[in-house]
């Protein structure tokens, strides 16, 4: 067996790394052999795959919006951006100066 690596020290870490495509290449052949010949290890991998799927389908932090709701948020953001730009333009517009005769001139 290859030298112990981080995944192995974490117990089930191998299966998670394999699932995520992050397995150390030096132990890939060993892990693939286990997956081919060990029903217990096949089951371990399957459990993590299903757990990941279950987490993705869980209620945590889900937003169930229609497409129109997303359009509304996008429009709201762009309108806020317009307002931000307008007020920046007003603040940075050149000062109005009074000329010699007291008339308003733009500098």
């Amino acid at each position, binding site marked *: 067996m290859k030298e112990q690596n981080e995944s192995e020290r974490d117990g089930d870490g191998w299966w998670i*790394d394999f699932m*995520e495509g992050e397995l150390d290449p030096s132990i890939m052949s060993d892990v693939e052999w286990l997956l081919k010949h060990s029903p217990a290890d096949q089951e371990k991998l*399957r459990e993590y795959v299903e757990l990941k*799927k279950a987490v*993705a389908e869980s209620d*945590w932090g889900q*937003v169930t919006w229609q497409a129109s709701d997303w359009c509304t948020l996008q429009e709201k953001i762009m309108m806020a*951006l317009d307002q931000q730009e307008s007020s920046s333009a007003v603040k940075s517009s050149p000062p109005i100066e009074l000329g010699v005769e007291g008339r308003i001139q733009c500098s």
Partner: protein
Amino acid sequence: MKTDQELISEVKEGHRAAFSELVCRHQKTMLRLALRVTRDLPQAEDVVQESFLKAYQKLDLFEGRSSFRSWLYQITLNSARNRLRSAGRESLGLEHHELAVPDQAESGLMQSDLRKFIGAQVELLPERQKMALTMRIFDDLSFREIAEIMGCPYDTAKANYRHGLMKLKDRILKEDAAQPQTGWETYLMEAD
């Protein structure tokens, strides 16, 4: 389809429609993130709006060393946390709170209850494991992006994810062993 970097270049040249495309592309991920932190949808919307406006203002400072998504993610996370802080709500973690879980002695966990239960268990994970896990599973971020956002080495980001998932599995199995006819084994059998 244009890349984020191409759209950013167009925005810097004054093409605001390109920024609208960036908003469309990333608003879902950012709203989910903001909602996970604030736990209030109207506040989360405000956070997302504020974050995109900040990103637009600071776009000249974005050098492209990280992905735009992870850069925006960091802005959104900071905005959401600042909002909680200013509202006097430092953390909405449930670590010290009672879980509102259905009475399992009577009914056992059904499919929708299993979803709620798993969601509640995710919430209970240690902060850094929860961050890594949710960024990977819900937001589909790469480990490189996760490491950038968390400000940690790549291997640490992976380790946080790994430990979070193992802890989650451990807790679900313990619950499953403690209760007759819980949802987890049924879920696994039906997944075949």
